[in-house]
């Protein structure tokens, strides 16, 4: 009852219905609801970023195009998490899910949620930095970092599920 149990509890709190891949017939379901939750967080972040764009356009701020680029990244990311990755859920039937793989999957899920929340927080900071061009520029960079981190996590998680 170590790290995994704690992570599991943490995820269950944020993603109701999550079983932590305990039942083979529910593997796909666990995968789906985790992705759904992460996609929802990204969708909220994107909406918040669109509010930032509106304010930026009103203030004629120079970061508008950069913020718009981030918005496009979030749209692509949300769709990748919610839909496209569903393609590999068929692999759950084939892979022999061992303890070790499940542990890694749970770790990835926890990290995924955490990083999605970090994206959301970065957007909030960006919204708050609107009045100061320097900190706004930094906020855009920070958001970009978090988005990249999330993309890398998705790649890693996919590798675990595909059994590489």
């Amino acid at each position, binding site marked *: 009852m170590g790290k995994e149990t704690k992570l599991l509890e943490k995820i269950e709190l944020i993603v109701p219905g999550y079983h932590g891949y305990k039942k083979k017939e529910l593997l796909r379901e666990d995968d789906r609801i985790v992705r759904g939750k992460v996609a929802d967080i990204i969708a909220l972040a994107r909406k918040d970023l*669109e509010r930032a764009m509106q304010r930026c356009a009103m203030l004629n701020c120079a970061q*508008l195009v950069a913020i718009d680029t981030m918005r496009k990244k979030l749209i692509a990311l949300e769709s990748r998490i919610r839909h496209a990755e569903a393609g590999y859920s068929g692999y759950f039937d084939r892979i022999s899910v061992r303890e070790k793989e499940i542990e890694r999957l749970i770790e990835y899920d926890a990290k995924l949620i955490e990083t999605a929340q970090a994206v959301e927080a970065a957007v909030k900071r960006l919204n708050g930095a609107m009045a100061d061009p320097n900190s706004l520029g930094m906020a855009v960079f920070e958001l970009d970092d978090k988005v990249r981190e999330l993309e890398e996590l998705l790649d890693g998680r996919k590798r675990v599920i595909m059994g590489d």
Partner: protein
Amino acid sequence: MVQVIEWTNPGEDEIIWRYPNEVIKWGAQLIVHEYEVAIFMRDGKVYDVFGPGRHTLTTQNLPLLYKLVGGSNSPFKATVIFVSMKQFQGRYGGETQTRELAPVKYYGVYWFKVSDPVLFLTEVVGGQSLYDTQDVTKFIRAYFNEGMMKHLSAYSIVDLFQNLDMVSTQVKVKLMEDFRRLGLELVDVKIEGVNTTDEWRQRLFWIMQTGNAQAVMQMDTAKQVAAELGKSEGAAIGAGMMIMPQLLQQPAQPAQPTQPYAGGGAPPAGYQGAQPAGAAQPNQEICPYCGKPIPPGARFCPYCGHEIKRCPNGHIVPEGAKFCPVCGAKIE
């Protein structure tokens, strides 16, 4: 036989589809595929909504309609509309006027999807009585164009040609809000081209070259410039246009010795229609920075060393221009 309500094989560009039979039986099978929503409407009003899945229609999952039809178990009337939640692409194009009333044409692509199917059906489908994809698409395109026209007209022609990235993003933000009102999400907008009349392109060239919009705008036509400089009518547009930068820059750059107007030389390509009296070889170009004749097609000026930017068609273009002011070609 069980009634099956399903949108079979929707086409690439299909946004909505109306189930042709308006008489629905209880117990009917409703099949909603991924990226779809099925909505029950009556008299243009939205009642019950179904997401992806296979649903058996019962009084429980159609509570609003059940109430409306008075609780009987006999077949009832309703319009079932399927809405696609996929992303669509649309092309647009139109004409408007800039802040200074310069006529501009524009065209490009936009991407959108339904974000709030109920609002979309209320505002567009029910509200406008548009029950097939073609009508809906037409409506959305017209709505987009109207917004584009309105928002673009708030900008100056220099902004449009020089800061197009910024302008298009700002316009996009405004259009996003317009689209949200219809339950649509405008994912992206790309302006592929902007263009204006010859006369405005010439003005634009000199506004961008000199940074002095006011002075350029005071001259009605290029011909007038030539006339004011004491040239004859025949001393053509090109000559007049070439003199202008010096004329306009003088107060701003007193240090620079007044450049003699390089003793003739042809206007840059595109203004080749006319030659000043006693001009040099007909195909010679003039450096817009120092006014000296440069070899045709030169990439930099041998006299002042300034880089000469050109459009894909070889016209000399001002620094920072996104489009050639002579032919409208995109620069990059």
